[in-house]
């Protein structure tokens, strides 16, 4: 009788220990499944467009605006006279094509500036163009500028037109990037 009890207890213990040894594996497998799902979702997010408000860095932008224009983000006026074309997603942040069209009387334009929020300092400022002789020819209806820029990470691209009367008209576009185009992180 004692022997039978001992055998029954031993079998129960063996069963419990086997079940216990399987538990961590099951948990790990479930976690693995979940993490692979999360990775797929994150991957989809990484490849898609980004919302402007999610990638803005006004503090960094203000450093650039202050250095170049002695102004801040609050001084910018969003305007539909500027049409900014940039990709929603760029595979290579080292080469992001940007087109700016400005339908404003050219003699009113002092300069066009291009900024981006998340490039390392001091490269939030990308370039400035002064139309000079172009603006003196009234036959040229629209000012057009094409360039290729670097983005360290997903960021807003901001085209800013400085008018002769001191206003800063602006247009924004958020661009996501696959791999950053600057050597050091922002």
């Amino acid at each position: 009788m004692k022997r039978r009890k001992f055998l029954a207890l031993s079998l129960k213990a063996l069963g419990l220990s086997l079940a216990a040894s399987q538990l961590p594996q099951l948990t790990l497998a479930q976690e693995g499944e979940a993490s692979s799902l999360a990775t797929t979702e994150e991957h989809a997010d990484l490849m898609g467009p980004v919302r402007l408000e999610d990638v803005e860095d006004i503090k960094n932008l203000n450093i650039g605006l202050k250095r170049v224009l002695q102004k801040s983000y609050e001084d910018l006026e969003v305007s539909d006279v500027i049409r900014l074309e940039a990709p929603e997603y760029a595979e290579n942040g080292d080469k992001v094509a940007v087109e700016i069209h400005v339908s404003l009387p050219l003699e009113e334009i002092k300069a066009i500036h291009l900024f981006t929020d998340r490039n390392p300092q001091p490269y939030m400022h990308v370039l400035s163009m002064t139309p000079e002789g172009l603006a003196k020819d009234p036959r040229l209806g629209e000012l057009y500028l094409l360039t290729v820029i670097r983005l360290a990470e997903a960021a807003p691209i901001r085209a800013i037109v400085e008018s002769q009367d001191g206003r800063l008209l602006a247009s924004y576009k958020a661009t996501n990037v696959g791999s950053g185009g600057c050597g050091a992180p922002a």
Partner: protein
Amino acid sequence: MNSPNILLAFNPRKAKPGEVIKVTLVVRHHMDHGLNLDIRGGFSLPDYIYDLQIYLGETLLSQFKLEGSVSSDPLLGFQMIAPDAPSSITVRYRDHAGERGEATFPLDVII
């Protein structure tokens, strides 16, 4: 003397006086922003084109102030009005290493 690293294209190649011409310009330059680590683990000195001027004949058409956020081999496109007589476009640039480049391209017009 023309710098061989400056390339320029007009579209259309020949325009009537007063017609809009799209000008696309490429300067072959590494545009080093100075944020890459060098062999000793320090940052390299920035060396990029910071000033670029475009002239129609002797008249300054446009001036560009560039930063290290402009891609290597910077590409710039703009539009202009074809002049009344054949002329030329001159591009001049300066970079941080003290290099200056200049190239002149004839601009034909259909008269």
